[in-house]
């Protein structure tokens, strides 16, 4: 498989959230506003990319009996490093993401890609696959958070976009959009649209 195809596959046909249905938990939790969602997407991309790369480099030396442990140690170490960096440089965002950065460790996308891809592939394709899956996850997060922030708080990236005129005329932000159930419904809608466009994805 060539590099570009490998990178782009997770954006649509093999999207980790909408097709592989991995990493749903954090996708519901951190998509209230766009900024934390972007930081989360970036963090996950960094962790998937590097954990894929590291595991792929080590793949011939890892004893298969302890391979899950090795994978977890690599992921955990990377997540802690990311968490520490966020705390040092974007403190307010790290407060908002709170436990969810730590929970990247349990994000199924990571273990899934390591087991399914990095353990059997060369470092370069693994790195690309990691970046691709991170971005594929991030795309959905940004899309969901866009609608949730717009309809729930009337803003994008913290800037008010719905004019005061609308509020004066009786428009109200939809408080339900801020709560997790609407994230699930938004993701469901995205899955629906995606499958109606790509008929191959529909299970028989």
């Amino acid at each position, binding site marked *: 498989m060539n590099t570009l195809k490998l990178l782009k596959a997770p954006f649509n046909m093999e999207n980790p959230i909408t097709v592989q249905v991995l990493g749903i938990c954090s996708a519901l939790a951190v998509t209230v506003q766009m900024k934390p969602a972007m930081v989360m997407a970036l963090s996950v991309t960094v962790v998937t990319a590097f954990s894929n790369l590291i595991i792929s480099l080590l793949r011939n*030396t*890892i*004893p*298969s*009996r*302890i391979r899950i*442990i*090795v994978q977890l*140690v*690599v992921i955990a*170490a990377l997540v*802690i*490093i990311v968490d*520490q*960096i966020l*705390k*040092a*440089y974007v*403190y*307010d965002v790290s407060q908002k993401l709170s436990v969810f950065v730590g929970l990247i460790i349990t994000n199924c996308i990571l273990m899934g890609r390591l087991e399914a891809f990095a353990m059997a592939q060369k470092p370069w394709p693994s790195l690309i696959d990691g970046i691709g899956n991170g971005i594929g996850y991030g795309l959905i997060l940004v899309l969901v958070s866009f609608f949730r922030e717009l309809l729930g708080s009337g803003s994008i990236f913290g800037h008010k976009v719905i004019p005061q005129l609308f509020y004066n005329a009786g428009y109200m932000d939809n408080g339900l959009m*801020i*709560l997790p159930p609407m994230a699930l419904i938004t993701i469901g809608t995205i899955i629906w649209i995606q499958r109606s466009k790509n008929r191959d994805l529909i299970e028989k």
Partner: protein
Amino acid sequence: MFSNRYIFIYSVVMVVIVAIALTVVAVLLKPKQEYNQRVEKMQNILVSVHVESTTKNAEELFKKYITESLVVNAKGDVIDGINAFDVEMHIENKKKSEDRNLPIFICSAENGQKYYIVPVRGKGLWGPIWGYISFKEDLNTIAGTQFGHKSETPGLGAEINTPGFQNQFIDKTIMNDNGEFVSVMVVKGGAPDSDKHGVDAISGGTITSKALEAMVRDCVKEYTVYFSKIRK
């Protein structure tokens, strides 16, 4: 197949390498993280006297407005040699009442008023809750509050850190007409404006509201001796 010996050595080497890497990262980033925490504390203190700050200008504004800080004990005596800003309430609350160091920050506002800011900290429903309360010069009327929490229920108990809840405390008093300490209560179903010692509790957040009431009462009570001293 790998031998047991190989697996054992492999895991030991891996763990040591990871440990070294994490230690290096933690040590390098620690000063920056501690600075962030200090800035957040400054911002919170400033919120209680209605000064909005950003992470960039918080330090500057803090120096401008918070002109004095001191540490007192429950007997009302000023303790020298301790920096009020470095006193951690979660450590003080574990000590006996008479051993506690109680920090007070004094804010000189632009209108010439002086505000006395005291920290409060207590137990919420799921984790710690904390905050700062500023008093006017009569040391009775509340000028502003700031509350924070670690993990209260979003939409319910977590509402304590919204301006809507915090602003209710403005102009409430902690002493009754006889000069006795009564603190501020949360009232289910809403407190009338005429109630000088009551604010509206959060619907669905009763345990957090009650915990906040207890926190305000217990922490502010420690200061009453000192307050009555300066009032005279």
